[in-house]
């Protein structure tokens, strides 16, 4: 398909590229302690981007037999398209990655059903008042990309993910606890999932209303993900930088965050869901630091934003087959610190351990603002967890909070197969309570 489209483009004398994506996925869902649905999906499609008379055109379809019309449509809309300020990359040597685990495709639906039932039974033995939901996905994605300038690449990636959650009325209020994992290999994190949900439920037995005041706030890896990911990463989006809308414009090489922060984008990390040899525009992928000891090192860029900013493309062009590429990140890793989380909690006089939040990423993330409801958080007094904090909010600004960033935990945990985060400890920050 990609070859045929490129031949057609060459025949018409226009530069262009064809991006083909196909996916086959099985989804087994349990809801409220019971098997809820079994689904099988098979979807594919192709997007054609052209440069005609110096302007960009794009069209897409998932009806394969319409590929010729789509080439015509892409050339057609190019007449009012934006000026093309980039070149398609040529042929290059691609890193060899192991993305394919045939065991993923050997998973039977019946086996997935058994695993789900096992998870639910094991949790329900200990915890009666939570309704358990489980999502199991397994399948493969295929990407094939080529352009008229000589780039050809394709890969097939298997994926397996597991997500479990417990939900119910505990001590007079709703409680929601969850845990998930994802990988390109078969990875049944059943024990971890069961343990997490049982532990959190047991901790939630006592609820406490806290007073508005200053606390040491410890964000769990999952809470870091929910609270700060967008504030950390949105201003690094090459498109936003290119337009001058990011507060980090023109600040490469400057110290922006605490020197405890080293933040890496790693597209080659083994087994991670976002791992890939080349990006969706044909740029070879490589790991890079966004921040090194608090110093801004890189933005994430697609071809267009790299060109506009006069920087090398970073291999962060991302898309679905039916859309134009835009900058995106792969697996994000925040490097950990010295001490273990147990020791950190033991040394906390008056603090809050935050494990789940509501409302992350809804404030003005570009400016670094965040404000979240502490949906699952525990009061720490004299080094011990006292009970679940209710009706409290934690908000502020990422940049202004840097002096309060006391430490990061030694443990760096996988969050859903997308990110690796440590616990983050902010000292003496304001938390709004209702007591």
């Amino acid at each position, binding site marked *: 398909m990609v070859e045929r489209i490129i031949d057609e483009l060459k025949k018409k004398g226009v530069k262009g590229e064809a991006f083909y994506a196909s996916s086959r996925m099985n989804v087994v869902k349990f*809801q409220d302690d019971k098997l809820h*649905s*079994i*689904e*099988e*999906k098979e*979807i*594919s*499609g192709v997007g054609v981007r052209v440069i005609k008379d110096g302007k*960009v*055109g*794009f*069209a*897409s*379809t*998932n*009806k*394969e037999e319409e590929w010729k019309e*789509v080439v015509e449509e*892409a050339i*057609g*809309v190019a007449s*009012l*398209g*934006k*000026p093309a300020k980039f070149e398609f990359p040529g042929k290059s040597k691609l890193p060899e990655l192991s993305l394919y685990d045939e065991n993923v495709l050997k998973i039977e*639906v019946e086996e997935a059903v058994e695993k789900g039932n096992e998870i639910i039974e094991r949790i329900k033995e200990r915890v009666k008042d939570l*309704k358990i939901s489980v999502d199991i996905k397994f399948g493969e994605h295929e990407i094939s990309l080529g352009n008229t300038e000589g780039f050809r690449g394709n890969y097939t990636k298997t994926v397996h993910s597991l997500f479990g959650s417990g*939900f*119910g*009325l505990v001590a007079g*209020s*709703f409680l929601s606890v969850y845990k998930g994992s994802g990988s390109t290999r078969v990875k049944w994190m059943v024990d971890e999932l069961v343990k997490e949900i049982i532990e959190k439920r047991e901790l939630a037995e006592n609820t406490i209303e806290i007073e*508005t005041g200053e606390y040491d706030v410890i964000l769990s890896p999952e809470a870091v993900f929910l609270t700060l990911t967008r504030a950390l990463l949105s201003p690094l989006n090459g*498109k936003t930088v290119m*337009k*001058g*809308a*990011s*507060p980090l414009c023109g600040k490469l090489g400057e110290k922006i965050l605490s020197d405890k922060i080293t933040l890496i984008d790693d597209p080659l990390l083994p087994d991670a869901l976002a791992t890939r040899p080349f990006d969706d525009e044909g740029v070879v992928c490589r790991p890079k630091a966004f921040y090194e000891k608090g110093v801004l090192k890189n933005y994430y860029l697609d071809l267009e934003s790299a060109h506009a900013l006069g920087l090398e493309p970073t291999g962060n062009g991302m898309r679905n087959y*039916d859309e*134009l590429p835009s900058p995106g990140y792969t697996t994000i890793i925040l490097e950990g610190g010295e001490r273990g989380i147990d020791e950190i909690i033991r040394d906390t006089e008056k603090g809050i351990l935050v494990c789940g939040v*509501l*409302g*992350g990423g*809804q*404030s*003005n993330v*570009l*400016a670094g603002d965040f*404000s*979240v*409801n502490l*949906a699952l958080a525990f009061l720490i007094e004299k080094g011990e967890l006292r009970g679940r904090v209710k*009706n409290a*909010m934690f*908000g502020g600004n990422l940049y202004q909070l840097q002096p309060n960033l006391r430490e990061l935990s030694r443990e760096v945990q996988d969050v859903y197969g997308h990110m690796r985060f440590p616990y983050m400890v902010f000292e003496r920050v*304001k938390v*709004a309570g*209702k007591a």
Partner: protein
Amino acid sequence: MIEELKRVLEKCGVEYAEIRVEEREGTAIYYSGKELEIAERKRSFGGCIRTFHKGGWGFVTFNKLKDLEDWLHRSERQAKTMKRESGLAPVKPVRDKVRLSLPDDPRKVPLEEKHELVRKYNQIVMGHEKIQTTRVGYEDTFIRRYYVNTEGTEIVEERVYSGVRMVATAVDGTNVQISFDSVGGTQGWNSVLGLEDVAERVCKEAVEMLKAEPVDAGVYTVVVDPQLAGVFAHEAFGHLSEADHIYENERIREIMKLGTRFGVDELSIVDDGTIKGERGYYPYDDEGVPSRRTYLIKNGILVGRLHSRETAYKMGEEPTGNARAINFAYPPIVRMSCTFIEPGDKTFEELTDIERGIYAIGAYGGQTELEMFTFSARRGYLIEKGKITKLLKNVVLTGNVFETLRNIDAIGNDLKLYGGLGGCGKGGQFPLPVSDGAPHIRIRNVVIGGK
């Protein structure tokens, strides 16, 4: 097409099966700052087969319409693997053809005219030196859907969505402020014309917000504008009325017991999929059930909820035509249509006649976890002695929905509905076209997060 699908269903070996096939085509044109960013045409095509057998569901989806019988049997095997108890509430079979007959069908408007419209709005949104960048665009999507099931329902339906979206980003040093709005629905090309005033407001608000002060965290009386109140009606309360959340969980069922008082007599909340022209309008849901108007709260009392055929069966109630899927690749689940708070009799001046409080306007976004919600207002004002005074930013409301509903003490007379180009997300299905709205409302004792 319908005949072909019916022939496949003749081979059905389980209790129930349905096939849905969709064709879509659409246009998107976006400006970003001075430059055209996106000009694209999209087509998509695909189908799905859902089967039901002894309480179990099977669901397969594909975009190559060959080997349909094979897909049917795969779906049947899935349904047989599931062992559970359930059923489908009976509905009358429907045979209908709803062909699109808009006088101003957006498909007939030349690409160049759409481009010109976007360019014009973008010029207005960019109209201040502090506006660093914009994102202003137009989108339309035409959908033709074929639906058949083994009970004799056959529907061909056409629909077209169109709308514009405008975002302005104002920058002053490291201070970045965003303002946005979106307008659109199912009523055709006319609905996106004459929005110069909206574009002006988006520009002006972003610039003004550069001077806004952060709100002090605390507990306030809050007057909420129709847009944010609509988001509250949808996010905080509407999702709780979706019966799939309710039927398995006894405790939630207890809280959501019909007949329970949830608010003052003046409070009524409705979900209505029959309002033509709204983004949340549809004649039939994705189980072939006609849409309808459903009261969720009437005069302060919980009186109804939203159903698919399955949840209606399980709870012994009537289907409400709320089983919807974002497209052919997803099974229908219980969703809202156009959800709004009915107007009361208070004027805006009566609502703001308070000692001290906050006027919260527009929504950045909202998130809920059943009883708990947080919403970020786009902007806010301090209210002092009945007067609207200081402009505020970072106004984030949080609380418990049941307490908050009880704390609504006054309802305005100025209902507005909002559709635009956005949508609702649930169960991995986003964005589903919906509308929401409300008049201005006043709520006592709201926790506002901030500095």
